[in-house]
């Protein structure tokens, strides 16, 4: 039961899934941090990325890498569309208008996928899935290693983008003080579009790398949005760093509770951790103090 190898294996699995959770949650927290808008279509965007990957692999017969390269620009376009239809028009309106608009987008995306791909779960096969190698008794699966590498690279690349690019600088400025940014001539709409597109692409990267691990179904977004919200709330809304830390934390918690208990326990535990964090630190572990 408390075999060190088993524990190390669980830890590794948790890190992998946690990195992907963190990556997906950055997509959500970025939009909140910069624009203070909650994107309820988040889970469906993740689902859309996974299904687009499935379509590219199964129907177009593309190899996994090519399929990913095809899906990500599509996600960028979808992000732009989301920004135009549901986020930009509602920036000056009460927050619940954006919540309802993005919920509407979620309903549209989910029913489109249901109408085109059907409701039966599907599966994406990649070459990495069957690839396994063993180091010191711990099993490494190709796809999981890929997830870890891609997630870490994306997070680092995004951090560099935020830190050093002009757009990244402007995003951080808008997050700090929107009014002051408008006064010094930062184009708020442009930054809003960039933030939403970046957020959706990051969500998409998480979606396409995680897709081969689990069965896909049109309602998978509900579980994703639940986990991403938990990650974002625990990490502190608007904090990218918090999202990564909380994502990994929850990934590891999930791996251990599923390893020693059941999936139900881990889902319940997510929620309980979320409520506890909210009660003790209403702004999350890294809210307010560390912003994007």
């Amino acid at each position, binding site marked *: 039961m408390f075999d060190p190898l088993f524990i190390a294996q669980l830890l590794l699995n948790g890190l992998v899934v946690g990195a992907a959770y963190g990556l997906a949650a950055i997509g959500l927290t970025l939009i909140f941090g910069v624009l203070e808008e909650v994107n309820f279509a988040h889970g469906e965007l993740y689902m859309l990325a996974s299904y687009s990957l499935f379509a590219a692999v199964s129907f177009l017969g593309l190899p996994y890498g090519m399929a990913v390269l095809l899906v990500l620009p599509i996600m960028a376009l979808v992000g732009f569309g989301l920004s135009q239809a549901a986020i930009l028009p*509602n920036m000056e309106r*009460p927050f619940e208008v954006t919540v309802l*608009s993005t919920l509407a987008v979620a309903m549209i995306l*989910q029913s489109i996928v249901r109408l085109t791909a059907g409701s039966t779960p599907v599966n994406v096969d990649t070459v990495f899935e069957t690839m396994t190698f063993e180091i010191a008794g711990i099993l490494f699966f190709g796809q999981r290693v890929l997830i870890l590498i891609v997630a870490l690279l994306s997070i680092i690349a995004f951090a560099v983008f935020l830190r050093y690019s002009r757009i990244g600088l402007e995003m951080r400025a808008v997050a700090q003080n929107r009014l002051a940014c408008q006064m010094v001539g930062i184009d708020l709409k442009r930054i809003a579009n960039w933030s939403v597109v970046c957020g959706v692409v990051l969500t998409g990267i998480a979606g396409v790398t995680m897709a081969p691990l689990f069965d896909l179904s049109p309602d998978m977004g509900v579980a994703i949005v639940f986990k991403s*919200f938990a990650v974002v709330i625990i990490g502190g809304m608007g904090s990218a760093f918090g999202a990564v830390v909380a994502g990994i934390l929850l990934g590891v918690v999930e791996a251990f509770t599923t390893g020693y208990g059941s999936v*139900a326990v881990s889902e319940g535990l997510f929620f309980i951790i*979320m409520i506890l964090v909210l009660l003790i630190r209403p702004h999350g572990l890294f809210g307010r103090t560390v912003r994007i």
Partner: protein
Amino acid sequence: MIPRSPYLIMLWWPILALAIASTGPSQYVLHILIIAGIYVILAQSLHLVLGQLGLLSLGIPAFFGIGAYAETLLSVHFGLDSLLSLVLVAGITFVSGLVIGVPSLRLSSHSFVIVTLSFAMLLQVIAFHWVDVTRGALGFPDIPAPSVLGFSWTDKTSWLIAILILDVVTFAAFIRIKTSRFGRALAATKGNEDLARAVGFSTFRVKLLAFAISGTLAGIAGTAYAHYITFIDPNVFGFSVTENLLIMVVLGGSGTVFGPMIGAVVFTVLPELLRFSPEFRSLLYGVLLLMAMLRFPLGLGELTSRFRRKK
């Protein structure tokens, strides 16, 4: 804002429903009317928090599900009189509303939306996995017919009458709340929370009480649903109820008195008339909701801000 005799105007729905029922329609038409009647109660539940307080609660299915499961367990295990168990369930959902409300209402309005949604999802997870009590994914088939003071019914006409009575009672309660001192406290809290607090309202208590009453209404709808459909499973906690309710309340007009009631009836009947598949209905609802938000986010955005400017 409130018509002179809202108690009379609200009777349009029971009168309309009974008029249709009196023409001897098919069982299917009666079924649609009954479902519309259940949605009228649920719409009132969301309307109380969203329309009166501007709180977007996505946790209505939590209370709907608690109500359905509590009623089922009470009638299967104890065989209580339905009126008695209805009162018990109302109490249970009211207390659940307090329990869920205390942590959720302390949060920012963004987090409130997320946490109320999470509560519904957590309860669904519990319903799936606490097999000893809830029978898990199998659900409860053959829930016994309700019996009130020894009188029991299963036919759809009696059901329609029973649901219409519940509709009238809950809507009357809603108007009573809206026109009471508590209703003015709600309006004050929605209009300007700091000001309301400054003039002596405990806005947290006001919100908590409204949230718990909203939960009670959803719980009552849940009991009716469980007895009428005679089968429940963890999907009663599902998101599709919220989806329908948002369309009904928001498109019906959450800033108005009768809007959500009209929305509940229209958006139950319309998809049936047009014979949409659930997928297509969801697509259409999504497009309608998005367009409504873009063109006239009335009741939510525009109406509240107009209301604020007047103050």
